[in-house]
């Protein structure tokens, strides 16, 4: 099967490509910058319809991971990459003859900020999604699923908090802050949060590709099915990096209002980096969000093979080996 993977430079993207390659699929990656691997590469931006159509011509299947992420930023950029980009890839895939399309989405597309306790995959809602990233991904998911047809089965998969060795998003930021002594626990730290070890997320995306003809048009949240108190999750990551767990505690309301102030300052100064706290992040850290995995596991015929405990062991091993190399 000829499979096109967009946005293959992220941790999840690389893992998916490796998995497909190991299965013997004919993989092409589409991304902005070369990664100098032996995978066939087409360089370009998803916002560029021509570049996209060059990549999609003749492909059998697409796993669409390319997205602009971040908790702040200019709406136009999210719109271009996430909404226009997805539309371009969907249109290109259909024109190019693909029969399967896995759109990588985010649970935040259906999250209005309240606690999510054992809920299923609810419909994406751009109106209530929090922040430009979630809102643009909600539009993107709608655009992708709207293209589901008899010719091309489209499935949306929403992995929740993907992490693993080499992850720069979640693990990288937490460890960097812990090193600087700037890592704080918001609220009681007891809110249960789902997360997904990267190998499991990659397995789920490929499972969705396999099952696409029977589950087209639907969305699935993917996680390890092992929610943990947010503080335990953070501590485990920090401990894996050989650091001491954080001792600073910030009350939830203070974090939320502080986040609002920081957002305004960052907005006014038009800074492109992320502020230390945002209201969105405070909500994410102070409220539960974990999901009912029964439908996902049954429909995708998939279940995680790497437990959180095993994942943390692998994370610690990777930190240990990096340190050996650097020292």
């Amino acid at each position, binding site marked *: 099967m000829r499979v096109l993977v967009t946005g293959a430079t992220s941790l999840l993207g690389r893992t998916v490509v490796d998995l497909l390659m190991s299965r013997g699929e004919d993989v092409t990656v589409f991304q902005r910058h070369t990664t100098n691997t032996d995978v066939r590469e087409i360089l370009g931006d998803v916002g560029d319809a021509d570049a996209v159509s060059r990549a999609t011509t003749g492909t059998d299947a697409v796993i669409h991971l390319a997205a602009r992420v971040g908790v702040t930023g200019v709406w136009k950029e999210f719109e271009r990459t996430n909404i226009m980009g997805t539309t371009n890839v969907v249109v290109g895939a259909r024109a190019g003859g693909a029969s399967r399309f896995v759109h990588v989405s985010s649970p935040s597309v259906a999250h209005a900020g309240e*606690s999510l*306790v*054992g*809920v299923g995959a609810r419909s994406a809602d751009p109106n209530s999604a929090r922040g430009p990233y979630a809102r643009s991904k909600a539009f993107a998911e709608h655009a992708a699923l709207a293209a589901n047809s008899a010719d091309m089965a489209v499935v949306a998969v929403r992995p929740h908090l993907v992490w693993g060795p080499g992850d720069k998003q979640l693990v990288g930021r937490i460890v960097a802050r812990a090193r600087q002594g700037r890592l704080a626990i918001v*609220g*009681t*730290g*007891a*809110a*249960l949060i789902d997360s997904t070890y990267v190998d499991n997320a990659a397995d789920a995306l490929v499972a969705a590709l396999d099952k696409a003809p029977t589950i087209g048009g639907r969305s699935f949240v993917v996680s390890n*099915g*092992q*929610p*943990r*108190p947010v*503080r*335990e999750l953070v*501590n*485990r990551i920090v*401990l894996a990096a050989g650091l001491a*767990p954080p001792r600073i505690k910030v009350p*939830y309301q203070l974090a939320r209002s502080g986040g609002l102030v920081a957002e305004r300052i960052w907005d006014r100064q038009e800074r492109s980096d992320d502020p230390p706290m945002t209201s969105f992040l405070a909500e994410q850290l*102070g*409220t*539960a969000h*974990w999901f*009912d*995995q*029964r439908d996902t*596991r049954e429909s995708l015929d998939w279940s995680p093979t790497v437990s959180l*405990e095993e994942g943390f062991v692998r994370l610690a091993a990777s930190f240990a080996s990096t340190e050996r190399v650097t020292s």
Partner: protein
Amino acid sequence: MKPVTLQPAALPPAGLPGLDPAWSRLIETPGVDGVGGTWHVLDNGVADAALTLLCVHGNPTWSYLWKDLLASAPSNIRVVAVDHIDMGFSERTGTTRRLAQRIEDLSALTAAMEIDGDVVIVAHDWGGPIALGWAEEHLNQLAGVVLMNTAVHQPSNASAPALIRAVRTPGILDKICVSTPAFVRGAAAFSRPRPPREVRMALEAPYRTPDRRAAIADFVKDIPLDPRHPTAATLDAVANGLVDLGDIPALLLWGPSDPVFSDLYLRDLEQRLPHANVHRFIGASHMLPVDVNIAPVVFDWLKGLDTEKAASFASVSGASLWSNIERLAHDDRVAVVDMGPDGPERAVTFAELADGVSSLASGLASIGLQRGDRVALLVPPGIDLALCLYASWRAGAVVVLVDAGLGARGISRALKSANPDYLIGIPKALSAARTLRWPGTRIATSELSRPVAALTGAKYSLDNLRAIGATSPIPDAPGPDDFAAVAFTSGATGPAKGVVYRHHQIQAQRDALMDLYDIQGTDRLVAAFGPFALFGPSMGITSIVPEMNVTSPGTLTARALAQAVDAVDATLVFGSPAALKNVAATARDLLPAERTALEGVRLLLSAGAPVPADVLRSATAVMVNATAHTPYGMTEVLPVADISLEQIDAAGTGRGVCVGIPVTGVDVLIDPLDTLGAPTGTTTTDPNVLGEVCVRAGHMREGYDKLWSTQHQASQPPGWHRTGDVGHFDSEGRLWIEGRIGHVVKTMFGPVTPIDLEHAINRIADVVQSAIVGVGPIGTQQVVAVIVIRDGSRRSALAKEPMADAVRSAVGDVDIAAVVVSPSLPVDKRHNSKIDRFRIAAWAERVLAGGRMGTP
């Protein structure tokens, strides 16, 4: 001449919650009032129905009250709910309609609708007399009567007339009922819990303007409070007509918090319809069909009308409960000893007890006690309790036993539910009875001095009654099928239920215990566990309660136990686990003579909560010749199974607690749980199948008092008792209990039972206690461990990672989402040992959703 139609009948506005517009119909009844009127009715329109429910609302409601019945009716039941003329969305005729007219109206409607098959009337509030009036005129098609919070008569002592009079004060009535929506809103405000705003709005929908509310005041005016009222004769006729309903199945559903139709009215209806099934929905109020969804209860009940009543377990009638007392009427052996702080204070021989029981029974009869009357006993275990209990039984009374551990509020609730005719108590209990208005003629155990009488409002004392009884004939004894007791014991959650026993069932329980433990007339019993103390005289053995606070079993010391054992030279000791735990903890204080006394004990029994083996082991360390046993059972049936300490050790560890092999005469079935943790109904005795434990025995309860629905649900399969415990049989036929069905965690991998996980966690060094609970929706719950650690902090917090690791590795395959450390776990008051997992689960749910930490 037809009066002017002020407003025609209409359809309800769209969008009322739970109301299907397709149900609404307008029906004209030309004959009504000689002129005609148009009704709005809700009708699910089932053709060729096996049965029609005719639902009749009261004041100031409308057919909307019955939406749940319409929504969930089985396919062969037609549900017709009417709006009375001038009420709801029916026509406003501008006439004043009295009860007699309304009964005629309803008959005209059923004629117009050609409802001529079997009908069950369902009525609420003042719809009751209207529907019953209709029923009495349609006996040939009446298949059943379902009434809720209604009345056909004003019982004496009722406070409603005062309320009604107040509302009826001229000038006030129109203001409350018509010109303002106060009465309509007030009725909705009676609802407990407060219904959502949209439902309140829906109840008000037909009564928005004064011109639509005229009949509300007319209804209030039509309540006869004196015999000259124009409706008094009609209502009396309806009330008296109920004698014709003796063969008609009846169901009384009640919201006991109703400030108008209190339990007094329920009592009145129970007396008029003695065969009725009764269910009181604790916490619900006047607007019962709004407060609770009555539909499943009504349809369950209707289903039961077709099926034959399950043959009750073969009632082998043993000797009467007082037979041993009568047999020993000339025996000077000690029957009961009262223990005080400095040793035995008072003792009665069997001869004295027999004399006391007989004179007290006669005394009770001569003050008017009838067979079947209820006598509540608020007397601590001892001589007086034995006297009152056996005299009440002998006189044919149903004794109401309320666990003192329920506290004033729980006792109050239980007594209001049981509604005893007589209340025998110590002065302290009687003065509480007076303050808290517990029902029943009060009888004091102590001498009736003037201050006592003034304080307690007691009319009699035991001595009075015995004096009266000495010269009056002894009443006829009740038979084995007569009701004997209503026992209220504290459950894990919710208000206590009254467990009903007949004489033959208690006899069978006594005999089962005597057989199981080979109890002979030469045995002597120390009962440090309330319920067991009652059996001594019936078994014909000497009994004594040690000096302790019976409501707090953990107060029993080793010395107090030894002194009681010494006082009667006891061979049997019965104590709750909490009591035995404290006995072991205080054993070092024992004097040598006391140790010697304890050596005479041959059998040590413990029950009331799961009994840890080490508690039995440490207790037998001071009762060196005793075999330790623990019977498994509950208030509804005891014993179910039995296991000795040796057998516990032989069983080793497994999933849950091994309670042994079912005792002779008891059948046990397992009702397997499905993946969502719900019983499937395909019962089995196969080994290693997890399910709810169902029991059947001759010594099983009859049912629950005024809790028809609860009793119905607990009696499936018919004739069995669902224990609410979950467990399994092992390959050797031993029963293992894994917890309460409500405590099962319903994960995506299926049900997870808490007890064996807790045991595994409790084996971790530094863990003192633990509770396994679930958070999240059923079917995808996460497992949470709440633990108490040695020298832990005074505040709850997430466990540190090493402790979380220890807990996760202790439980093996089950994924524990969170480990929370808490300074203590809430336990129930009575046994001081049952962990309140519901409360812990509710707390964990909040905390793990990001809420405040606090403590469980």
